[in-house]
């Protein structure tokens, strides 16, 4: 039971980690809590369902289900990247020089807008992810894990690793780190800051879309309001791991997922959503830089 809960926690934690990456990157560069990031994740989940629906209509799912799912992942990530890019240009870029609270409030505005936009266009009821993929259960040492869970854990680990490599090894990644350290200095050295910020939003939103679609597959249901709570939890994960740190976001996501699933089964499941906040508050008070955060 204990290890089973840990396993389930790791699965959910992988999703939190993917969303947390977007928070941590944006915060690292803009020092902005991108409230709308949770909504991007929600939009990703909806887009996944919509594209799978389209592929079912045109008959691609009969041809090859994995191909249809892969294409949905890619399209949903691309669309969400476009959303993230546009949101940054419209709602955050004009506020670059405004007081610190203005972009945060603007982000809340974006979040309210996107939630209601999806509610109006897709309806307020839960959407069901079509059950096209048969999941098989793998049993070992009294534990059960589905292939989908394995898929989620591996995907989140893989994407986090790729992102880490990207930030550490490529030229753009280097520029991102430079901008995060000192924007003025970076621009003096010829780095196009606006482009770097756009890239950050594009990557973060794409990852959130993948997370959203995986959650839609895992739970089978999505709702227009899932973004808010998932976003806050992912933010808690990012803070826990150390904001600005990519391995930290992953670690924070897994820890949060495990703690939440253990606490829900051993303490009380009614307060499930409160644990993330409690962790967040404790971390901010005791170790505001997080587990893997750099000290100033």
């Amino acid at each position, binding site marked *: 039971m204990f290890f089973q809960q840990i396993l389930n926690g790791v699965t959910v934690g992988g999703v939190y980690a993917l969303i947390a990456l977007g928070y941590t990157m944006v915060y690292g560069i803009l020092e902005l809590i991108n409230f709308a990031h949770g909504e991007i994740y929600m939009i990703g989940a909806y887009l996944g369902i919509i*594209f799978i629906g389209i592929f079912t209509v045109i008959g691609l799912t009969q041809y090859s289900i994995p191909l249809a799912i892969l294409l949905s992942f890619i399209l949903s990530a691309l669309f969400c990247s476009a959303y993230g890019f546009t949101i940054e240009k419209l709602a955050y870029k004009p506020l670059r020089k405004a007081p610190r609270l203005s972009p945060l*409030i603007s982000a809340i*505005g974006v979040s309210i807008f996107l939630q209601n*936009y999806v509610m109006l266009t897709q309806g307020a009821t839960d959407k069901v992810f079509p059950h096209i993929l048969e999941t098989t259960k793998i049993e070992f040492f009294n534990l059960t894990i589905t292939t989908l869970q394995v898929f989620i854990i591996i995907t989140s680990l893989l994407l986090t690793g790729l992102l880490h490599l990207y930030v550490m090894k490529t030229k753009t990644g280097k520029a991102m780190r430079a901008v995060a350290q000192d924007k003025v200095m970076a621009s003096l050295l010829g780095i196009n800051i606006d482009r770097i910020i756009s890239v950050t939003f594009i990557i973060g939103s794409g990852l959130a879309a993948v997370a959203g679609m995986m959650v839609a597959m895992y739970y089978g249901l999505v709702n227009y309001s899932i973004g808010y709570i998932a976003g806050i939890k992912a933010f808690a994960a990012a*803070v826990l791991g150390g904001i600005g740190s990519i391995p930290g976001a992953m670690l924070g996501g897994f820890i949060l997922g495990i703690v939440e699933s253990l606490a829900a089964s051993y303490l009380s499941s009614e307060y499930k*959503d409160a644990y993330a906040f409690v962790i967040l508050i404790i971390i901010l008070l005791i170790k505001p830089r997080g587990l893997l955060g750099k000290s100033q």
Partner: protein
Amino acid sequence: MKTILFILWLSFLSVPFMGLKGGLWLLSGIVLAYCIFLIIKKSSNLLKEFRLPEIPYNLKILYALIFVILLVLPFVLKDYYLDVIILAGIYIILALGLNVVIGFSGLLNLGFAAFYAIGAYSFALLTTNAGLGFWTSLSSTLFITALSGFILAFPALRLRGDYLAIVTLGFGEIARLTLNNWDSLTRGPNGISGIPSPFVFGFELSSLSHYYYLVFIFVLIAVFIVRRVYHSRIGRAWLALRDDEMAAEAMGIDTTKYKFLAFSFGAFWAGLAGTLFASKMRFVSPESFTFMESVFVACMVILGGLGSIPGVIVGSLILVVLPEVLREFQLYRMLALGIGIILMMVFRPLGLIRSKG
């Protein structure tokens, strides 16, 4: 050219959600809106030259006139409109309290609904379970909420800016979840009903117009006290804290003390608003105190103008009355609220009525 591409881009983004037809509709809608915007922009140049003739008026007489109108309002208005006005009054008190925290002291609190909830629930429990009278419950409630503000200030002392916002948001959510799950005390999602109507000097306040006067008096008291505090030594210390914490500290302002004061004083008004809300509705449930409620109140403060008392009053009136007027478009009002917040931040970040200084 750029705008055309931009419009096409937006429509393209919405295609998966609205379908091809919906995307086209949106496209035409945006084009129309843009044309109107262009026309307005053109004509606004003309408007700039046109000036309103100066009407000589005495500010005192104007205030007196408004006061008289407000006094006779219950005799003229239908119950429904009176209801809306009472709600607006409660929100004015709430927003005044939040204005102390956000506007005066610059501490973004996104969990303000928690204090509102604590106020409403304390009052509800004190009157139903403990069977206390209106005034005893009111004063105890105000004490409890001010104390809870004081307690929240402890973590807030160490945090700044958006971290503070997140922690207060977490506090708000924890408060709501507790109300929702602590069945033995709060009766969970069912809420507490049967809150008795208040007795003022042996006179039962039962009808809407009675409540109107009660709320009206409390709004006047709140505006008066908040104004006095704003212009006092404490108010100036808050402003200094908001503008530059380091400089304030260097000038000998005890920042810790004033942060505690701001949180408690803000929460105090939330407690009053909560009391009035519970007493008027005679029913409280956790649904009334969600995160959206906190955001809604924050919007009132921001829309009206951070730190400005008339601004906050105008902001609350707009945000309460406008949705009621636009009832037919109820579905779209949250959508409009979201866009409104963004536009506000981009074009007029200081609000409709800017505070002096």
